[in-house]
């Protein structure tokens, strides 16, 4: 059997890999993404704060700073093209002491050196006007009007879907476990024995980048995990804060934030705890820590509106900066490692650099004539007028059937999620694309119906439907 040799293989279906894949799809190249989980956006890109950072936080002259500021400028355009919500809600770094007020001045200076626009220090009165629920102990803040929020997994899913619409291929449940140098490139073998070949390989595997690099004989960096726990509040609490609120950073790190999400929930977190294995368990201490810190930032935090808590693990490198470079050891391997915060913000800029500069040095890039940068938003239906909705329902009555009551998601949207690139095949994959199950009842009403739709569309028995891939089946069988 003749195996095709892809021009470029991207290992890792997170936001960095996703935007790289999309950039590659602009060119006349055969490209394939390999993702170890059952869906894309299941690593860091799934569980993070969704902040588009202004760029005052990263060290001057670092890759973090450079790509943060560039990415911040690009984010609105990328999000628009991909049909993903982006809100330029502004950031506030809050000071609780005179010493912290001094630190704000340093942050402002650093931000200006990094190229951030519009930074202003505001006093207590103006802070309270901007955020009425801010703690009475807050003395002032650094206001960064270029800060924003975006949904990290929707951005990832949409980027990969758009890349696939333009010809890119995706293989999920493909965990690269062996690499062999062959004529013309590499043969990458998965845990279950499948092989994919590629001339150039881009290692964007998040917490797994070190292991992947090692498979190529590259031991030039170490990646460790730092877990962050979050609490999410119901949409009923929308407006509790309007900007993304940060604590003044200390040597220990950025601290937690209190922020709205693009979907109008309120997000509290993340903590920071070293972990060895990329585990994403929450802990009683961690969740308590989030609550205590949130109470310090704001008064009257509506914890009674908690709908879920979760954790994500940041991948940080021993260089304390992004690693975005060709491997010095393995030809045609490009490492994108240690992409922790501000990785999401930086991702469009990283993608541009990786492809237009690094890949460009390895393969001739010819722009496609018919590249379509646009993707229909997964939530197109909710944005429509009544007349437009009724036209859609006339064509396809499944859009007239509400499945998820809390978020008002229709059967049509769920079927579409199982159909369009990148196809959802699990409950969580449908949830990430449509929001079905993300409301206040957390799938209590709709999960059985979503499961039935998945089973029907994929033509599998109900007991084979999983929450998130192998070994997460919902049911064990029929009743007596």
């Amino acid at each position: 059997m003749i195996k095709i040799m892809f021009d470029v293989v991207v290992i890792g279906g997170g936001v960095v890999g996703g935007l790289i894949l999309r950039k590659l799809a602009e060119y006349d190249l055969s490209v394939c993404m390999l993702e170890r989980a059952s869906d894309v956006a299941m690593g860091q890109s799934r569980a993070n704060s969704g902040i588009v950072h202004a760029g005052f936080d990263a060290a001057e002259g670092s890759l973090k700073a450079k790509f943060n500021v560039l990415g911040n400028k690009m984010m609105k355009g990328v999000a628009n093209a991909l049909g993903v919500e982006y809100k330029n809600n502004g950031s506030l770094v809050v000071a609780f002491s005179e010493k912290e007020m001094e630190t704000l001045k340093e942050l402002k200076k650093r931000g200006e050196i990094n190229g951030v626009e519009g930074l202003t220090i505001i006093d207590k009165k103006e802070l309270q006007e901007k955020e009425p629920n801010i703690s009475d102990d807050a003395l002032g803040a650094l206001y960064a009007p270029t800060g924003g929020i975006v949904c990290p997994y929707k951005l990832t899913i949409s980027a990969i879907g758009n890349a696939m619409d333009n010809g890119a291929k995706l293989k999920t449940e493909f965990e690269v476990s062996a690499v062999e140098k062959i004529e013309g490139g590499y043969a990458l073998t998965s845990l279950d024995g499948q092989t994919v070949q590629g001339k150039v390989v881009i290692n964007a595997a998040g917490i797994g980048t070190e292991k992947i690099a090692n498979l190529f004989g590259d031991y030039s960096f170490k990646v460790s995990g730092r877990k962050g726990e979050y609490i999410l509040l119901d949409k009923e609490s929308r407006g509790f804060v309007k900007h993304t609120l940060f604590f003044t950073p200390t040597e220990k790190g950025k601290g937690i934030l209190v922020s709205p999400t693009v979907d109008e929930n309120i997000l509290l977190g993340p903590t920071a705890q070293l972990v060895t294995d990329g585990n994403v368990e929450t802990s009683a201490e961690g969740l308590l820590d989030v609550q205590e810190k949130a109470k310090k930032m704001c008064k009257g935090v509506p914890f009674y509106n908690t709908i879920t808590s979760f954790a994500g693990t940041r991948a940080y490198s021993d260089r304390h900066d992004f690693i975005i470079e060709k491997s010095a050891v393995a030809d045609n391997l490009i490492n994108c490692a240690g992409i922790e915060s501000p990785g999401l913000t930086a991702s469009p800029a990283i993608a541009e650099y990786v492809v237009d500069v690094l890949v460009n040095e390895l393969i001739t890039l010819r722009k496609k004539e018919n590249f379509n940068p646009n993707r229909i938003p997964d939530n197109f239906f909710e944005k429509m007028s009544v007349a437009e909705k009724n036209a859609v329902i006339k064509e396809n009555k499944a859009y007239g059937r509400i499945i998820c009551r809390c978020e008002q998601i229709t059967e049509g949207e769920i079927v579409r999620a199982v159909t369009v690139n990148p196809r959802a095949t699990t409950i969580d994959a449908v949830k990430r694309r449509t929001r079905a199950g993300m409301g206040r009842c957390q799938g209590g009403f709709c999960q059985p119906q979503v499961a039935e739709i998945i089973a029907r569309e994929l033509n599998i028995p109900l007991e084979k439907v999983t929450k998130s891939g192998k070994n997460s089946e919902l049911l064990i069988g029929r009743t007596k």
Partner: protein
Amino acid sequence: MKNYDVIVIGGGPAGLAAAVKAYDYGAEVLIIEREDILGGILNQCIHNGFGLTRFKESLSGPEYAARFVDEVKKRNIDVFIKTTVLSVGNDKSVTAINETDGVFTLKAKAIILAMGCRERSKGALNVAGTRPAGLYSAGTAQKYVNVKGYLPGKNVVILGSGDIGLIMARRMTLEGAKVHAVCEIMPYSSGLKRNIVQCLNDFDIPLYLSHTITKIEGDGRVTGVVISQVDENKRPIKGTEKHFDCDTVLFSVGLIPENELTKTAGVEIYPNTKGAYVYQNRETSVEGIFSCGNVLHVHDLVDFVSEEAEIAGVAAAEYALSGGKAHDAVSCVCGDNVSYVLPQKIDKNIDGNVKIFFRVKNVFKNCAVKVQSGDEILVYKKKRIALPGEMETVTLPADKIKTLNGGVTVSLEV
């Protein structure tokens, strides 16, 4: 499509009973129901025990619902099934969506909110650990087992000894699963006494009072839980941890009235019930909008849901056909040891006794229910026992209402 005298939102036991009474009063009635069939949550409650008070029979949920569905079918009551209401206006307009009509808006002279309640999710509890498959709210598991015919798992731990948790403990056991434990964070169960006996004791399922689940383990599917005893502040006590291997965890941790539509209509919500503020005829703070059933306050017995819905049905039809009357209301509030009262407003312009519903904050023995206005004690009723898990009533006689010149307080004297 036409406009109606009364639109009932929800075709469960509350909506059905209200629609029948509104129709019999003379109103043109529409029921809007989001499921494929009428009956509401009763359709999945295949155990019996429903109707003991109302029909003096022990019916299953579907049988009880069928009694009312039959009554609806005998009458010229319009029913839209598979139709979800998206919003309710302050002006009594109802916007809904279904496959045949798309998104549409109707107007009514009166609206009855009967949307029922939903379960509190595990997510609201901040339980530490992983988020694997195999975690269900008890009602979702009940749907899979009783309606879809699928078993969620074989080795079960249940958090919450409310009725749904107890019923599912028995149900899972009958389907061949092993229920290892039912944990209850309070020092007492909030379920009906008969359910503790018939669902736990009869099946030797251990009940751990003052315990909660503190950790969930398992990656793809749940593999185990850790439970701990809690102190009087519901904080886990170190050293009391117990581990259970399991592949399924059911959460029966509270019911929350589903008042999202109520809020779109601008109706005021009473925080103690999370349902609407109402007068004794179940009219809310918005003229012509009425509320009944679990969306108003979570009931223990469906018989009382039907009784309450009938009050709302008559009142809504009367409002639709004769217009509203001015209110002359006094407040009804909680006194000692009472967590909520209903109604919260007693209208002196409405004739008749008022049956006040309330719940107590704790388990009390040898107590007395006291209804007073100012210094005057209007009703005093001795009780052997009062429990938070069993809704109480006390009747305020009509003649006492007419002479009220201040608010009323309901308290439990211990």
